[in-house]
Each structure stands twice: as structure tokens, then as C-alpha cells.
């Protein structure tokens, strides 16, 4: 039974009961432990029921009673077949407790089925990792802000956080040369991380720089999304936004200097400066979007001088007229100059149009010239042919024969050349064919090899994939192994189970032996009783035959009958004693089991509880009455 108890206690521990290590059997279970074990099991089996019950035994009698009653009810609801009352929990007897706990342990969900339900794969690992992180964080107690270590600070949130602020890094390039190399090699260019003074800034800048490098790489692969790169490189660098602002500043100064130069009122210089500063401030507030900003800036830049002019027009009252005069003169001059410019422009345009038409004419003429040259050459050729024929005409027949000779000789030469060519051609052709066949063979071979190599590549890749997958599975299994409880000695349990099975087999053999013995005994008894009957019948007949004649024999016959009757009575009594003995043994067993239930002591305890309850009630009543 100890083995069974140990297995039972192990499964109770798995359900969450804190069974102290010195408790090895169910006999050592205290009332508190029993209640805790039952409540924990109930919580695992049916969380809705279990969560309403406390696993701590309350001190007050009535509360104990109520808890025990609800526990009994919950167990009955689960389908516990035996009788169960509150005394089974408060005053547990060993066999009852064993039955109850075995029943509950059987109802516990097994781990194996749970594992099978869980989804495998990346998401499961990920979720489990999240779960373990949260568990760790929940296990940490809250620490006041001043006592936190850096890690706890990060978890519990008083670590100083800084926004992601990156600045542009200058990295040396390996393939630089000349002056650039000199600069990059000199100590003037700091190593990349130390270009930013703050640690967070360093990390942020490096990460950003790396991300933009990656982006460019991706962009090279797929040229479609250039926006991303532009976006990536533009977002974080705060310097960029400052650049257009400075440009604007410079432009404004330039423009103002040009348009206000001739007036040169020294009193306004200071105002201008201020104005510029306020503009600068305004520009500062409207920072980020590059192109739109410059547009709007251009608008303001055209508008502002007019406003400025209006403002300034009020200010210097005395020098106004003089200014107007000069301005009129300037405007006149400007007008005349503009007219001149317009006329000159017009002339230039006319000349350009002329040039264009002339150019076109020139090209046409050139093409015509080329065509006529070509026709002249053709005609010259024809002329030469005709002049030769005319030369040959006078001595017609002789020349014809000569010509025929020439034609024949040339034909023969042609045939000769053809045969020679054929002579050369045949071996060359054969060689060519041979080489070509070789080439084909080689190509076939190489393509076969290529296919093999590709196959190999594929298999290598597949193997690598497989290895990675296996590695992941291995990792998952290792993590699962870590989460599994360590104290399960499966082997020991199986060995014990095997031992128990062996014992049972031995016992069964013994039982069959005993059974066969009994059967033999029965047979013997039967044969003996048959023999007895037969001998008795024979004797009876013999004696009865003689009894009619002899008086003494009659007496003997009477004695024989009496003997037979007495003997059968004796046998009957022996059988009766046997059955009574069996009954006695049964009854003794029953008594033992009843004794094991400790009914009497339990009854006494229950009576005591009843008394305590009544006392409590009386006290409460008294208090109510007092109140």
C-alpha cells in the first residue's frame, strides 16, 4: 500500500498541494492536509467549483462544517460512488481517504493529453516565451523607485527613457583614395560610435545607419520602391531640416540686400535684423516637410517685401519726395531698356528662324548632290563596257573563238578547282562531324553533371533546412523538458508496476493450487461418503437377514442403526461448525473494517462538534439578546 500512497501523493503534489516531505503515507495526513488536497484537486478538475472553496481550514467550527459539507457535495457532484459526509474530511479514516483521493486523482486531467492539445511550432514557442517572461515579471515584487536596480527599473518603469534621436554618422569607406583617404585615416575622423556623445544617441544612430544601408541594399534588388530609401534616410536626420532653413535665411538676406541696397537707410538695418530673426523663428516652427516648405517660403518671400515696403513707406517722411523722383527716373530708364531688350530679342529670334530654314535647305542640297554622284558612277561603268565591245566588234569571228577558248579554259579550271576543293572538303567535313559529335557528347555530359550538381545543391539545401527544423524542435523539446517536473522517475514506476504484476501472478498460481486441493478433498470426501453408504447398505442387509433368526443379532442391528444415525449427526454438526466458523470470520472482518472507520471516536467527536456548535449558537444568541 505504501507504493500506491507514494504515487497518490506525487499526483497530489502535481495538482498543487504542498505535501510536506516527511509525510509518506496517507495515515500521516492531517485534517488540514486532507482539505487542502481535496480543494486543490477540485480546482484542477473543475475550476468553477474549486475557485469558490478555500484550501485553508477556518478555525471556527461552523465554518469548518460548512466547508466540509460543500466539499462533500462537490465530490458527490463529480460522481463519487460511496457515501460521503463532512466527518470524512474533518476526521479522515485511512481507507475512506484512500478511496476518495484515488477517485480524485483518476479525475485529474493527464499531462499527456494536455500536451497533445497544445499547438506546436513557432507561435507556440513564442507564446510560451511571452508567458514565461510575464511570469517572471509577475513574480517580482514591486520595488520603490529609489531602491531599483537597473533591470528592475526597466521593468517597473522608472528608467529614464530618451526618444530615438539619431544623427548622421560618417563611416570610412574601404575603397576611398587620395585626399578622402587621408581624411578618413587621420584622427580627425572619430571612430563611428564616438561621433555621438550620448550613449542612447550612439545606439540609435548606429541602428539607423545600418537600417538605411540595409534599405539601400534592398532597393538595389528591387528598384521599384525608391520612396522607401528616401523615406528612411529622411525621417530621422534633424540636420536636414536645418539646411533649408539656413538656405532660406541666406536667400532672404540676399534679396533684401538687392532690393533695398539703393535706399540704404542706415536706421533700418537693425529693424531688418530683427525682422529676419522673427522670420527665422517662424521658419523654425514650421520645420519638417522639405519641398512644400520651400514653396511656401517662396510665396512669403514674394509677399513680404511689399508688406515691408508699405511699412517702410510710413517711416521716413522727409526723404520721401526725393526718393519718388529718383524712382521715377529709374522707372523710365528701366522702361526704355526693356524695350531695347525686347527688340533685340525679336531680332535674335528672326535670325534664328532664318538659320533653321537655311540649314534644312543645305541638307536637301547635299543629299541631291550625293544622288547625282552615284548615277554618274553607274553611267561611267556602262560606258566602259560598251567601249570594250565596240573595240572587239571589227574582228568578230576570231575574237568569238578566243572568247570561247577562254571560257572553256576557265570552265575546266573551275572543274579542277572544284575537284580539288572536294578533295580538301571531304576529310575536313569528316573531321568537323567527328568534332561536333565529341562536342555534343561533352555537352551532354556537362549538362548531366550540371543537373547532378543542382540536385546536390537541392539536397544540401533540404538537409540544411531539415537540420534547422530539427534544431528548432530540439530547442522546443529542451524547453519543454525544463518545464517538466524533475522528480518523475518513470522507470522506477514501471519497474514497480512490473513487480506488482509478478506478485499478482504468483498469488494467482497459489490460489489455483489451493482450489485444486480443495477440489481433490471434495472428491475424496464424496468417494468416502459413497463407500460408507455402500458398506452400510451391505452390512444392513446381512445383519437384517440374520436378525430374524437370532435375538442377539437383532440387538446388533439396532446398535448399528443407532451408530449410523449418530455418525451422520456428528458429520452434520462438523459441517455446521465449519459454516459457523466461516460466518464468524466474516463477522470479524466486518468488525475490523468498522473499527477502522473509528465510528465511536468519530461519533464522540461529532457530538463534541455538536456541543461546540450549540455553544457558539448560544453565545451568538446571547449577544443578539444583549444587543
Amino acid at each position: 500500500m505504501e507504493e500506491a500512497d507514494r504515487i497518490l501523493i506525487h499526483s497530489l503534489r502535481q495538482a498543487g498541494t504542498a505535501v510536506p516531505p516527511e509525510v509518506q503515507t496517507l495515515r500521516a495526513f492531517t485534517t488540514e492536509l486532507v482539505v487542502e488536497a481535496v480543494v486543490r484537486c477540485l480546482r484542477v478538475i473543475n475550476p468553477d467549483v474549486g475557485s469558490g472553496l478555500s484550501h485553508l481550514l477556518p478555525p471556527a467550527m461552523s465554518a469548518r462544517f460548512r466547508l466540509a459539507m460543500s466539499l462533500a457535495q462537490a465530490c458527490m457532484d463529480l460522481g463519487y460512488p460511496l457515501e460521503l459526509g463532512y466527518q470524512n474530511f474533518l476526521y479522515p479514516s485511512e481507507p475512506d481517504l484512500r478511496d476518495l483521493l484515488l477517485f480524485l486523482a483518476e479525475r485529474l486531467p493527464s499531462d499527456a493529453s494536455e500536451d497533445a492539445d497544445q499547438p506546436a511550432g513557432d507561435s507556440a514557442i513564442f507564446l510560451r516565451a511571452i508567458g514565461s517572461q510575464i511570469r517572471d515579471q509577475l513574480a517580482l515584487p514591486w520595488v520603490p523607485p529609489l531602491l531599483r536596480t537597473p533591470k528592475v527599473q526597466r521593468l517597473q518603469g522608472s528608467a529614464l527613457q530618451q526618444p530615438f534621436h539619431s544623427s548622421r554618422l560618417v563611416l570610412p569607406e574601404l575603397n576611398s583614395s587620395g585626399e578622402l583617404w587621408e581624411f578618413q585615416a587621420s584622427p580627425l575622423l572619430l571612430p563611428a560610435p564616438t561621433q555621438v556623445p550620448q550613449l542612447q544617441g550612439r545606439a540609435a544612430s548606429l541602428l539607423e545607419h545600418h537600417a538605411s544601408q540595409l534599405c539601400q541594399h534592398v532597393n538595389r534588388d528591387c528598384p521599384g520602391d525608391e520612396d522607401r530609401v528616401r523615406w528612411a534616410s529622411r525621417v530621422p536626420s534633424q540636420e536636414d531640416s536645418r539646411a533649408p532653413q539656413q538656405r532660406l535665411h541666406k536667400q532672404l538676406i540676399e534679396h533684401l540686400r538687392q532690393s533695398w541696397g539703393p535706399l540704404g537707410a542706415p536706421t533700418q538695418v537693425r529693424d531688418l535684423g530683427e525682422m529676419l530673426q522673427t522670420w527665422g523663428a517662424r521658419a523654425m516652427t514650421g520645420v519638417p516637410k522639405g519641398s512644400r516648405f520651400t514653396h511656401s517660403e517662396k510665396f512669403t518671400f514674394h509677399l513680404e517685401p511689399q508688406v515691408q515696403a508699405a511699412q517702410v513707406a510710413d517711416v521716413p517722411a522727409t526723404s520721401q519726395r526725393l526718393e519718388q523722383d529718383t524712382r521715377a527716373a529709374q522707372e523710365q530708364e528701366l522702361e526704355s531698356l526693356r524695350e531695347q531688350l525686347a527688340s533685340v530679342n525679336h531680332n535674335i529670334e528672326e535670325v534664328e528662324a532664318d538659320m533653321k530654314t537655311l540649314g534644312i535647305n543645305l541638307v536637301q542640297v547635299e543629299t541631291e548632290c550625293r544622288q547625282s554622284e552615284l548615277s554618274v558612277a553607274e553611267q561611267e561603268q556602262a560606258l566602259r563596257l560598251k567601249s570594250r565591245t565596240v573595240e572587239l566588234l571589227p574582228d568578230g569571228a576570231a575574237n568569238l573563238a578566243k572568247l570561247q577558248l577562254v571560257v572553256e579554259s576557265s570552265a575546266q579550271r573551275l572543274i579542277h578547282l572544284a575537284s580539288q576543293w572536294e578533295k580538301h572538303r571531304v576529310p575536313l567535313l569528316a573531321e568537323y562531324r567527328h568534332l561536333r559529335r565529341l562536342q555534343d557528347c561533352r555537352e551532354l555530359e556537362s549538362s548531366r553533371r550540371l543537373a547532378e550538381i543542382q540536385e546536390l545543391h537541392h539536397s544540401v539545401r533540404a538537409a540544411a533546412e531539415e537540420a534547422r527544423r530539427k534544431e528548432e524542435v530540439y530547442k522546443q523539446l529542451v524547453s519543454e523538458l525544463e518545464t517538466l517536473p524533475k522528480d518523475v522517475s518513470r522507470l522506477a514506476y514501471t519497474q514497480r508496476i512490473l513487480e506488482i504484476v509478478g506478485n499478482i501472478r504468483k498469488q494467482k498460481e497459489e490460489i489455483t493450487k489451493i482450489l485444486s486441493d480443495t477440489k481433490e478433498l471434495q472428491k475424496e470426501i464424496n468417494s468416502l461418503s459413497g463407500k460408507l453408504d455402500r458398506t452400510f447398505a451391505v452390512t444392513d442387509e446381512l445383519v437384517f437377514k440374520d436378525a430374524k433368526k437370532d435375538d442377539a443379532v437383532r440387538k446388533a442391528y439396532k446398535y448399528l442403526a443407532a451408530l449410523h444415525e449418530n455418525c451422520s449427526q456428528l458429520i452434520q454438526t462438523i459441517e455446521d461448525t465449519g459454516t459457523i466458523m466461516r460466518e464468524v470470520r466474516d463477522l470479524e472482518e466486518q468488525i475490523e473494517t468498522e473499527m477502522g472507520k473509528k465510528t465511536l471516536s468519530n461519533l464522540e467527536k461529532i457530538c463534541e462538534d455538536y456541543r461546540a456548535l450549540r455553544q457558539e449558537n448560544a453565545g451568538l444568541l446571547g449577544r443578539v439578546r444583549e444587543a
Partner: protein
Amino acid sequence: MELSESVQRGIQTLADPGSFDSNAFALLLRAAFQSLLDARADEAALDHPYLKQIDPVVLKHCHAAAATCILEAGKHQVDKSTLSTYLEDCKFDRERIELFCTEYQNNKNSLETLLGSIGRSLPHITDVSWRLEYQIKTNQLHKMYRPGYLVTLNVENNDSQSYPEINFSCNMEQLQDLVGKLKDASKSLERATQL
């Protein structure tokens, strides 16, 4: 973990025993970690006599590449085995991998703290106090007779070391709703831990 081409080239140069002998490698690695984690790390980290013999451009390039690699590894929370396989791919020998991994393992916590300190997060609620009020009437209603709750949340702010308070008032249903939501949240947290 994915590294850009230039960083990979830097790391591979770092792995090459012809460019960096083991002493120089250890020095450079340490310098890279220090430049990331120690604000007082000076620019003279690379002026060690051992490193003087190496081309300064290559040296700086490798330094930046090592720092980037470390940061990326920290960002992805790469464990030791993954890191070592990655370095193996970059042709590091066993000894250097060992050194890199131990340095990484030693500095992992501070690296995480550093990366964690970049960014923003919501303020943390550390305490709550509340007061019950009973509204008898308002400007609009003659008879009101309703309870209201004035709740003050004490909050820790991460961006600046300040402890502002958040005040709001709500009626009973809203408060119940809030409490129910909070319970839901804690329950789902617990459920997440039981996976």
C-alpha cells in the same frame, strides 16, 4: 539577424587572422563593447600600440561594424548558439567565437538596458486614492442624489523623473466598468502565464 553588406565585410575582415591577430581582435572587440556601453569611453580607444600597425580606415570600419553587429544582436535578443552560428558563417575561428560570445553574454544585460532606454512608454500607475462624493443637485438638475467618485492615480513618468497625478471623476457604472476592465486585464495576464 540580417546585416548589411558593408557590416558583413567589416566582420569578415575582423575574422581574418591576416588583418587582425588575436590580441588585436580582443582589443577591438572590447573597444567596441566599451564604446557602446560606457559613456566615458574616449576616442583614444583605438590608439593602442597593438592596433597602430593596422590601416586606420580598416580599423575604423571594423570597429563600426563590430559595434553594429553587437547592437543588432542585442536588438534581436539573439542567444549564444545563434550568434556563434552566425559568426561561423562569417568564417570566425572557434577561439574568436568563444571570446565574442562570452563578451556578449557578459554585456547582454547592460546592452538590453541601453536599448530599453531608447523610446517612449506609457506612464506607470503606482498608487490610487479615491474619494466618494454625493451630488445633491447641479446647476441644471434640481434633484440629483447620485454618488460620484473622485479618483486620483499616482503615476511614474519615464521621460522625466516626475510623479504627476491623474485626476478624474466618474459615476458608479463607469467605476465598475473600470474595475471590471482591470480585472479582465489581470486575468488575461494570468492566462498568458499558464500557456
